[in-house]
């Protein structure tokens, strides 16, 4: 099988997300219903979910989700994990056989903490250590793939329609304060589970609908900083850009939006002086991370969700609120499917970041 990453695979898609800003947890059932409404935006070749706050009992451990093609791959990956991490708990991830979901790999979960001595010897910051270990498994161990690596969050994905993937993983049995999901419409048939979305790196998860035209400019730039775009998807490169700007450069998410979906120079010129100065500076500092072409993304992270459209808004995206709940989706129907009477419904402008965060992180209703 030609694995994703050997070729570049653009795709159309559907995305949806929800967060309860009070921190109250809800089951993944709502997301399954939401994405099912947009069935026609997927073609059965990929679906997936990210849930935040789902592992409260192991919240201080990195939750690794892995696909294995073979027992041998599993053995090699576990040996590697054992050399680099203390594993608090590991088990096969519970799944429910469905006729529409086939060819699944072995799917396992490990709650890990870096071995203190190894971490100290590496002279790396803890998160960088984890990122490098994940990359090594994905690049070096044939048949093993880490597809989720954040704390107190998890990604669940596979080949199939998203609602079937949700039921396959039994997401109605998980509870989180935020969820995102993705239905994929690839223009190539990958048939590889690792290629489904969300794409994750530590606690960042990205679901994306679109096909960016700046891909190779972004890829060749971000690869200078130690990232390797092995999957060759837009989602992967966007995730790396966000990780680089937030984790390595220390930008805020608003600032990130001014880099990747920067306003046009002519728009910036009309802004109040302080904004003008800051946005000009960001464009001059990171011009190669401007993302052009259609995209609508939902970025999930510990404590919040961010919705962002490309600068021309070439993909649909709607936001809505109801009490503590906030929703983001490709189509309004996906929101109304789970909340028929939202307080507000709103279509953000191109390049306008909409950020919904837990109240205790400063989020506002």
């Amino acid at each position, binding site marked *: 099988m030609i694995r994703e990453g050997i070729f570049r695979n653009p795709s159309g898609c559907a995305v949806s997300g929800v967060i309860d800003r009070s921190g109250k947890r809800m089951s993944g059932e709502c997301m399954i219903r939401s994405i099912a409404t947009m069935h026609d935006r997927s073609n059965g070749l990929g679906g997936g979910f990210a849930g935040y706050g789902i592992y409260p009992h192991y919240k201080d451990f990195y939750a690794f989700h892995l696909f294995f093609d073979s027992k041998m791959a599993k053995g090699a990956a576990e040996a590697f994990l054992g050399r680099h991490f203390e594993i608090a708990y590991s088990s096969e991830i519970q799944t429910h056989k469905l006729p529409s979901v086939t060819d699944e790999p072995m799917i396992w979960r490990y709650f890990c903490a870096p071995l203190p001595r190894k971490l100290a010897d590496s002279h790396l910051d803890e998160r960088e250590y984890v990122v490098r270990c994940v990359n090594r498994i994905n690049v070096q161990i044939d048949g093993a793939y880490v597809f989720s690596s954040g704390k107190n969050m998890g990604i669940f994905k596979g080949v199939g329609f998203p609602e079937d993937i949700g039921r396959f993983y039994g997401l109605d049995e998980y509870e989180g304060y935020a969820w995102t999901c993705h239905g994929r419409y690839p223009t190539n048939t990958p048939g590889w589970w690792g290629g489904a979305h969300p794409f994750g790196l530590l606690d960042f998860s990205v679901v994306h609908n679109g096909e*960016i035209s700046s891909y190779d400019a972004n890829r*060749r730039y971000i690869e200078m900083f130690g990232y390797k775009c092995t999957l060759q998807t837009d989602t992967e490169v966007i995730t790396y850009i966000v990780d680089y700007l937030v984790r390595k450069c220390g930008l805020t998410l608003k600032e990130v939006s001014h880099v990747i979906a920067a306003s046009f120079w002519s728009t910036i010129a009309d802004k109040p002086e*302080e904004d003008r100065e800051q946005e000009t500076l960001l464009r*001059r500092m*990171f011009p190669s991370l401007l993302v052009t072409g*259609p995209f609508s993304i939902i970025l999930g992270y510990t404590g919040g969700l961010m919705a962002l459209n490309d600068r*021309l808004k070439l993909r649909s995206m709607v936001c809505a609120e109801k009490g503590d709940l906030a929703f983001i989706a490709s189509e309004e129907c996906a929101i109304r499917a789970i909340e028929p009477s939202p307080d507000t419904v709103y279509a953000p402008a191109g390049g306008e970041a909409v950020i919904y965060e837990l109240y205790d992180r400063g989020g506002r209703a």
Partner: protein
Amino acid sequence: MELFVHGDYEVVRNPDLCIACRVCERQCANEVHWYDETAGKMKAYSDKCVNCHRCVCLCPTHALKIVKTDDTYKINANWNNATINEVYKQANSGGVLLSSMGNPKPYPVFWDKMLVNASQVTNPPIDPLREPMETKVWLGKRTVKIERDEKGRLKNTLAPQLELSVPVMFSAMSYGSISYNAHESLARAAEELGIYYNTGEGGLHKDFYKYGKNTIVQVASGRFGGFKGYLETAAAIEIKMGQGAKPGIGGHLPGAKINEDVSQTRMIPRGVDAISPAPHHDIYSIEDLRQLVYSLKEATEYKKPVIVKIAAVHNAAAIASGIARSGADIIAIDGFRGGTGAAPTRIRDNVGIPIELALASVDARLREEGIRDDVSIVVGGSIRSSADVVKAIALGADACYIGTAALLALGCPLCRSCHEGKCNWGIATQRPDLVKRLNPDIGYKRLVNLVTAWNHEIQEMMGGMGINSVEALRGNRLMLRGIGLTDTELSVLGIRYAGQSL
């Protein structure tokens, strides 16, 4: 014994149309045309003709055309006419053959072997007539430390950069090699377009200091015309290490072109050949370059970007990597088809490499080493159209230098005789009667037209690719495909073959 060498071109005059007005005679600085009183008709010494087309253009009855001569030696694929003639000329004179403008030999032009992508269905093309389409670029270092003020706002930690409204600049052409009016046209066009022109190594005429904010001043091995005021007036300073038309040797301005004004601007004596040393005698290695970069920065209080210009040679990638670490803000690379006012023919035609290959390998190397943000890359030699600009940027350039194309806009028909100082178009000459043929009011407008037209075309092509900012095109090699290229050429260019999908 001096062997007669037949000219390459012949003047053909239609006797039915010629009215013997003698315009051609007055227009030709090469003294080709003359009036035969006894015969009562115009005649021509074709072997003096350089095929500059001045007479053809100005003849009121269109009686003239210039044709390639059909005089020939015995046909020989190895010893062709031009080769034989060159041997004769050298046996006659004992001198090095001189020529000018870019390498005319039929080497492959890789621009013409690359094709650009466009969007269909899965993502939309963007219409530049209806949507913003950004071609503004900033040149310089982009390495930044993120620092914030008390209020948490980002501080401007960027090094000085150049702002260009279009990713095109006029490349270095010195006052001396080209005329006052040509320089004025370039300077005014740069100002109106929001781009930059480059003084070349001949200093800056005092009248043009007022265009300083659109001027790049050059510091070359001859150090002609350089002093504090020269550096201070400019927007950026370019150290010329090499030139694509003549890698490995210095500039050459024939004494015939050094009149009073040129001599004052260059600070050299009148009428004597001005030959720059091949190396900078204070730069024998990369550490020395670093010292010159920082001397210039010290002299201008770190307010101006410093450009280092090199000729595209075999080891360009490693050299560029050294330059990127030398403190320079911008690297300019000049390909082997770049123009010149005068160069030894053998060097022009045989030394250096195509800019396409040099650019691709430099950009890839700087990225591999993680230092692409330390410098911007500007390429020239030769960029002939907006399509070349688009392809150069997709390969990894930040902007392009144009020289020959700019002179064409001023009327130059590429006769390649600049070194003789008798340019009939008033461009590459200092003879006042010739210089005044180039009207800067018209010349600058034609340059503005050219770059404006290219900008529209760049926008059209970007829009087709679904890209609405030139920043997203830079280094976007997936937008290019090769045609008629070998595997090695594809791998040096870092692109795939036409028909190979994503």
